[in-house]
């Protein structure tokens, strides 16, 4: 086993002391021994402080790891990945299914009415009334989907709060990351998806752009879109 630096310094110092005690008469040698003694003291002080610094660093790292472990536990990652995210995913699947079913019902009823015979007004009215009632019933999906979406929003907020607290506690900085293939395609194909609160460019502004007889977009057309 390798001895600690302070232990080595103690040994050197001990050796010098025993040399000094052996009645050395040679003056230069006595001076060398004195200097060596001071050097051994300095070494001991230096390595002692170095040990304390390293010990302090290790303690800091250990505390940091312990704190990180606590923060990760508070994050409840198993609960998030095992329960909350799958639960939210199921709710969204149900939203898609509910809206599809309702749309299917409403569209089918409307298409049936569009093709209905109108020769017998009384029978036609009865058919229209029944179809309208089924359409109204189908619209009840909105209440259910609203509740399901609220659950998903609650889950997302929970995750956002936990991750923010974790990031803040550990002083995490975002690293620059490379664009994924999917993000690259979305950027190249200008895929932004529907805008919140309606279209970013109104249909009237688009119409103004396409009202031009020319095929090319001129700067005035572009400027009009940014007004």
């Amino acid at each position: 086993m390798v001895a600690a630096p302070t232990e080595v310094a103690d040994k050197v110092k001990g050796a010098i002391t025993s040399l000094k005690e052996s009645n050395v008469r040679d003056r230069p040698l006595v001076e060398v021994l004195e200097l060596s003694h001071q050097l051994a003291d300095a070494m001991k002080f230096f390595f002692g402080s170095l040990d304390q610094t390293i010990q302090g660093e290790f303690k800091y790292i250990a505390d940091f790891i312990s704190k990180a472990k606590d923060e990760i536990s508070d994050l409840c990652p198993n609960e998030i990945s095992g329960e909350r995210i799958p639960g939210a995913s199921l709710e969204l699947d149900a939203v898609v299914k509910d809206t599809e079913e309702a749309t299917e019902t409403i569209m089918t009823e409307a298409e049936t009415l569009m093709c209905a015979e109108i020769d017998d007004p009384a029978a036609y009215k009865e058919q229209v009334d029944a179809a309208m009632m089924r359409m109204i019933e189908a619209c009840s999906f909105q209440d259910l989907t609203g509740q399901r979406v609220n659950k998903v929003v609650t889950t997302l907020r929970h995750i956002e709060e936990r991750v923010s607290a974790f990031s803040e506690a550990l002083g995490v900085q975002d690293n620059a990351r490379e664009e994924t293939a999917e993000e690259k395609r979305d950027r190249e194909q200008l895929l932004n998806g529907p805008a919140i609160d309606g279209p970013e460019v109104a249909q009237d502004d688009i119409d103004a752009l396409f009202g031009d007889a020319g095929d090319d977009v001129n700067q005035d057309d572009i400027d009009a879109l940014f007004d």
Partner: protein
Amino acid sequence: MAVDMSMPVLVVDDYKTMIRIITNLLKQLGFENIEDAADGKEAFAKMQNNNYGLVISDWNMEPMTGYELLREVRADDKLKATPFIMVTAESKTENVIAAKKAGVNNYIVKPFNAATLKGKITAVLGEF
């Protein structure tokens, strides 16, 4: 010149419901021959074998977007004159400008109504 209501029209969208909505609106407007495709790739393949008088396409589809389809169509000598209307939720200025530069004939943002669709088809094909 009157619009030939029997000419084939191609509706391209990855949502069956939207295809159904546009198809129903086109039928209401009097178009008789309506076909559909689920993305740009399928649409472009169909266009190789059919002489469509109008293409109404969504933008955001996999694997080929409506924007890619538009550029493919405009780069194809046989197809480049096909009237092309984009019907999409992509409403950013950059989208509209890119589509216009790529040669789209008209642009409709979702959600839209029957009057808007009719207005844009009239603007592209003429009164019908």
